[in-house]
């Protein structure tokens, strides 16, 4: 089979933090799929940008080696011509939406091809039919769910009919059902003779597919050798026992019921996972618990004579909304009066942040920033526990393990830890699992029981793939 894309000893170093991509070679044949795996920090995103030509066209830095597309070097072709040959789909679908309507989103790419209006119309209709996007045609892309957005991102690239597709962690924002659907779409492309490169750290979704050959990216900074039996110190403080009670919680936003009539109670000292599809109200539920969301119904502690409000701290989904200090240390300790330095040391240790103590937060990787946001939140005193919104995003397996360790320590110290996730593997580590849908709670109980409640999973429309093992 002819080679369509060839990377010859390419490497790239970012000027900002001397990270990037270690020298690597790869060749991709027509009708072939490659699945690129690697730890965070190994340069997966950088690799996709090198292959598509964004590096060196849009980035400054030390680029060496050569990428040949159909025999032409990416450095010799202008960006718009490269884009005709290679289609790149980014990690966060919401960030690549640039048009006011779904239709315009697809047209944006078509207009740049220089084809006739009749051809554009034909391709547009084909794509709408193929991806069943017709009902969304005049909606703003920002009103679509994550899965729909990623489908649209693929559609707007596919309409341009490039030969080669490159994906930068396309699954990280998707729930299992949407992720499986997405993988099926890409497999379908390969069946039709296209070539595809997928960089992804949710390995399991691709490892079992026969369409992809696995390729391990070496990486510049190897993570420290994994010591299996490292013993982490316990959390230096402990909390009193309590019970969180939620009764008839409902939330309405601009006329829409986001949460209806939810009631549940949770004991302290456990990890609780909240799972549901996009739009089920997971984030809104956390916001209500922490007191940021106007709601109806009661949320209280220790259903006694005193109607005490819970006091939680919340780790927000996007770490960038909080970081502004000149160093990681300053960031964690900012506005903490009389900080408990023992706790600070413990957090640095547990979250693998010690080597960044003096690094400016903006220069950290996505995963590191998330851990920093967790650290700064835990440094504040939360009397009853901590809430985490999608903590697994952008974390590779190693750091997910770290996260689980930390959450376990917190729960042992008496914290009530509640997190939302679409990552079922992470959810499987919780003690307690709540499945929610826009209609309310679908299942609520110990994790091992809820995981096997088949009808509940069917009801919320989430697939539990066979390869997921839930016997943790």
């Amino acid at each position, binding site marked *: 089979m002819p080679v369509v894309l060839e990377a010859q000893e390419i490497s790239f170093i970012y*000027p900002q933090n001397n990270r990037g991509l270690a020298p690597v070679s790869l060749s991709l044949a027509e009708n072939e799929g490659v699945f690129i795996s690697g730890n965070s920090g190994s340069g997966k995103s950088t690799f996709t940008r090198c292959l598509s030509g964004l590096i060196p066209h849009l980035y400054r*830095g030390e680029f060496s080696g050569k990428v040949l597309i159909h025999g032409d070097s990416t450095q010799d072709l*202008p960006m718009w011509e490269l884009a005709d040959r290679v289609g790149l789909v980014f990690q966060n679908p919401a960030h690549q939406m640039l048009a006011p309507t779904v239709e315009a989103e697809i047209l944006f790419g078509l207009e740049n091809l220089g084809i006739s209006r009749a051809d554009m119309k034909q391709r547009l209709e084909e794509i709408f039919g193929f991806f069943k996007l017709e009902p969304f045609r005049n909606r703003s892309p920002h009103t679509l769910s994550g899965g729909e957005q990623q489908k649209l991102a693929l559609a707007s690239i596919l309409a341009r009919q490039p030969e080669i597709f490159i994906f930068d962690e396309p699954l990280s924002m998707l729930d299992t059902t949407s992720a499986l659907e997405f993988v099926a779409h890409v497999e379908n492309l390969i069946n039709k003779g296209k070539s595809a490169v997928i960089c992804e750290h949710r390995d399991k979704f691709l490892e079992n597919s026969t369409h992809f050959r696995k390729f391990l990216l070496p990486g510049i900074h190897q993570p420290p050798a994994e010591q299996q039996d490292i013993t982490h110190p316990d959390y230096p403080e402990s909390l009193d026992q309590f019970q969180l009670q939620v009764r008839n919680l409902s939330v309405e936003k601009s006329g829409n019921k986001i949460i209806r009539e939810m009631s549940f109670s949770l004991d302290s000292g456990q990890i609780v996972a909240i799972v549901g599809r996009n739009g089920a109200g997971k984030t809104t539920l956390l916001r209500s618990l922490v007191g940021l969301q106007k709601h109806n119904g009661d949320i209280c502690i220790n259903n006694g004579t005193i109607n005490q409000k819970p006091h939680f701290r919340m780790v927000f989904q996007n770490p960038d909304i909080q970081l502004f200090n000149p160093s990681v240390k300053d960031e964690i300790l900012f506005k903490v009066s009389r900080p408990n330095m023992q706790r600070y040391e413990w957090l640095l240790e547990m979250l693998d942040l010690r080597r960044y103590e003096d690094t*400016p937060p903006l220069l950290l990787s996505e995963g590191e920033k998330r851990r920093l946001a967790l650290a700064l939140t835990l440094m504040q005193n939360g009397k009853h526990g901590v809430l985490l919104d999608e903590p697994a995003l952008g974390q590779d397996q190693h750091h997910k393990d770290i996260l689980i360790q930390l959450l376990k320590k917190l729960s042992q110290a008496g914290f009530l830890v509640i997190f939302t996730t679409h990552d079922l593997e992470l959810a499987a580590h919780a003690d307690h699992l709540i499945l929610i849908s826009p209609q309310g709670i679908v299942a609520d109980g110990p994790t091992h029981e809820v995981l096997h409640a088949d009808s509940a999973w069917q009801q919320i429309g989430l697939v539990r793939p066979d390869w997921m093992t839930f016997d943790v």
Partner: protein
Amino acid sequence: MKTRYFSTFQLFLMTLFAVLIVVAKIALRLPLQLSGHSGVFWMAIIIVGSRVVPKIGSASLIGLLSGILASFLGLGDFGAINTLLSYTMIGVGTDLALLLLGNPENLFVAGIAGALGHFCKFLVKWAFGAITGAPVGFIALGLAKAIVGYIVFGAIGGILGGLTLIALRKAGYFKYLQEKK
């Protein structure tokens, strides 16, 4: 990549800064009974923008874009032309002030540039009043108060902009920018 005065990235940056201005203008109604208080975030963003895109004319372009947005949204009381002009003039004034004064990471410079830029908005409003024939008493009743308000809040905004720039530099923002064309 074609080389242009403003690269595409810089253009989008300025566009989004203009959006930030409009957002800040809407979201921040300080309970202060002084005219011009929205200048605090306004000038901060303009000053930051003029450094993030370090070219003459960037502040003016941010001003113009925010003016178009605000006109479309129906912000401002005296109709679209007045809004468009006064938003644009803030940028032009800041550009000119910085051309004279240099780097706003010096807080003193930032404060003065902010005051000058923001005062240009007052000038437009005032000139508009004069041209449509608003009489002597119109601003005269609160003329001094209005002038002081615009200058003081502009200066505070400028200083906030300067502080923001310093913090951005320490946090590694400019290194992050540097790698993007």
